[in-house]
């Protein structure tokens, strides 16, 4: 890929955003941040992105709601979206997938796992 993969991270926790930002930007990704679903949608309305990584439980608009809106829109509906989940049960995965997520990252994650997950879905 000639240009960097652009990633939007959505998490209401500043430390989690910082962790993601640190891990991803040191691996050559271009990282933008939003602190909940609503601000993510606002950002997406005017920006381009290759992969979205979102937390699930957030105020105002949660991760599933965000995915719903993105998939329901036109601009980014085919973007890969990874959800951050604390559990790796099949039920959780099935639900994430049913909600429209492309994949998931199980917290706590290490940098390799994170980068591998992003690479796996980045077009």
């Amino acid at each position: 890929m000639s240009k960097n993969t652009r990633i939007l991270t959505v998490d209401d926790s500043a430390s989690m955003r910082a962790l993601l930002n640190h891990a991803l930007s040191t691996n050559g990704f271009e990282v933008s941040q939003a602190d909940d679903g609503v601000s993510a949608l606002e950002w997406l309305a005017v920006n381009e992105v290759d992969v979205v990584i979102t937390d699930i439980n957030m105020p105002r608009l949660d991760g599933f709601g965000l995915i719903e809106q993105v998939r329901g829109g036109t601009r980014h509906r085919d973007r890969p979206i990874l959800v951050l989940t604390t559990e790796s049960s099949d039920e959780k995965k099935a639900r994430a997938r049913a909600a429209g997520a492309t994949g998931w990252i199980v917290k706590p994650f290490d940098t390799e796992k994170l980068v591998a997950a992003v690479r796996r879905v980045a077009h």
Partner: protein
Amino acid sequence: MSPEEIQQIFFVECEESLAAAEAGLAACREGTQDSDTVNGVFRAVHSIKGGAGAFGYGALQAYTHTFETLLSDVREGLVAIEPELIDLLLRALDTLADHVEAAREGGDAPDDAALIAEMEAAMAANLAAPASPSPVAEIPSDDPPQSSEAASEDPDFGLDLDALLDDLTADFAPPPAGEGATDPLDMAASQGTGTWPVHVRPKAGAMRNGSEPLLMLRDLAELGGRCVHCDVSQVPQLDGFDVAQGYLGWTFAMPGEVTEDSVREIFDFIGDDCAVALGADAQIPEVELASPAPQPSGQAANGQGADDRGAALEAGPSRTEAREPDEAGTAAPSPGGNDGAATRGPVAAAPAAAPPAAPVAGQSIRIDLHKLDRLIDLVGELVIAQAMLVQRLEGAGVNATEELSLLESLTRDIQESAMSIRAQPIASVFSRVPRILRDLASSTGKHVRLEVHGETTELDKTVIERLGEPLTHLIRNAVDHGIEKAEDRIAAGKSPEGTLTLSAEHRSGRIVISIADDGAGINREVVLAKAIEKGIVNPEAQLSAEEIDNLIFAPGFSTAKQISNISGRGVGMDVVRQNVKELGGRITIESTPGKGTAFILTMPLTLAISDGMIVNVGDQTMVVPLAHVVESLRPGEGDVKGLGSNRRMLNVRGQFIPVITLGEELSTACNATTPEEGVLIVVDTESAGQAALLVDDIHDQRQFVIKSLATNFRPVEGVAGATILGDGRVALIVDVDGLVACALPAHERQAA
């Protein structure tokens, strides 16, 4: 940003989460038990858990897991919200705070075994109930249906797609793989014993959700797999071709050293939407066309959701409208989940349905404090520059009153909003109080009801941060010394439960914080006797009630008959007053025997800008901080009496206070050599009582921005700092406390 800095952010976040959870639980106790409130508490604990895991705090993570699980049950209505439960949750929250503290300070994790057992018991109570969730947990996402009907074994390559496929597969396997119509298994076998086959057939849903099956084939190739066969038998004629369907199937020959797990991992995300069969005995799974597709039996509620979505995707333009019921449909059947789907209905559909307990998670951005301080500094400079401009223009006789007043009001607005950025609601300090009271209740047996007023009152962040300690001490003091034991209260005809009232309000540019108890009030006889015994006051001294009350601030004073472990921590009330004073505040006492005691703190709203009295001393202009000024007066004949050879005392309504000539103390020539020629400013000091400063004249009263002398020059005794005046000159700010203490011989100082 370094990992340490990120950790710092995490701990700041923990504090916020703890405060949010505390507020939420308090709201629950008051009866606000709607889903937003409960979910707020859940989210707070959930967020701490997430960070704990990410930063490797095992004990914290393990504890929050139990806590979170219980909260999840509460949120889902599986555990009823009862007073005992809220009490348990509050205690769990206290221990959580201790856990966070231990993680931050690297100390030992608190003993949480009993609490965990209690929480588990609270959960177990509902486990027996029939409503137990998650029967749908087993969805075979990793096990695609092993369809072995020989549909794909009939190679039907009479198509022009051949060349196309060659191109496609050549991307994945270095040698051209589409060599012809060979049986795939033979083909795989012919690659040598070192390989094993992987059969892949993406289904209709494989392109949903931003998935791209091509990437999975790419990943297989990256593992060293070679595409040995592509099944195109199911590709229909063009008129029946639907781009959303999965018609193609592939067989890859994987090198022997590649494990099955690593291959399965590639298809982890796609789950049921791509059929995968591994091993020599397997075949390419059969095509599953979407439209009438019968669901595999294991797929229940969630699978239905997926299907709805697939349908919606085909529906085209009307999809957005179709979402709304879909949303409700997927949100409802999710009983066992912890991860928030259960609440998204209310959150997304009706964000303002129920008023949340407190505006905890407002919309906010985080700014580096240095940037903010820089802004405030600059605004301070702007204020000065504006004042300089006014002075210059007036001096030059330019009449631009309208423009200047506009500029002035704009400058003031900018200044106020810049300061308000640094301002935080005092709730962040008040929110810690319930915890303190709970701790005190268990150690003293005194149960205290808390009343809080004005917790949204805002003041400077630095003031807030440094207010915590004195406030904590005052609260401990109020419970320990102020509020009586339950039996004494009953005997005095009061309710056995004490009441502590915290309030904050803005009053004339300062914030007034009151900590009031309804206890016995200060026992002045005991206090006076103690002060005499300790040699703090002269036995013959005639002290007013107020003066006696203030004795408890004297260094070395402690009235507790025995030093308890609550207030008697070696930190006396003198330190409290010192802390408050350092923040530019003052503390006063209002006590009524039998009714209670109130400590009233008057704090500046900010530390960056203060009000001052601009005075002239000789050729110098100085600033006296207004916080210290009690009154200013021109003494009349006979108001000032000599004392000894060179000291003078001012008679203020019958009370004599020492006169200090400001010019002398600061070694500048003073025009007014006798008090009658100048102006006396009566100031209040913490350590030396009142004194009167003699200056030539009072010039103005205005706001000033403090510039530190210590950082720009060196510390100077009697000078608190410097500021720039409207005319561009530098004026020194008088350190009233230091100056007075220094100027007066010890025996002349009054007991404060």
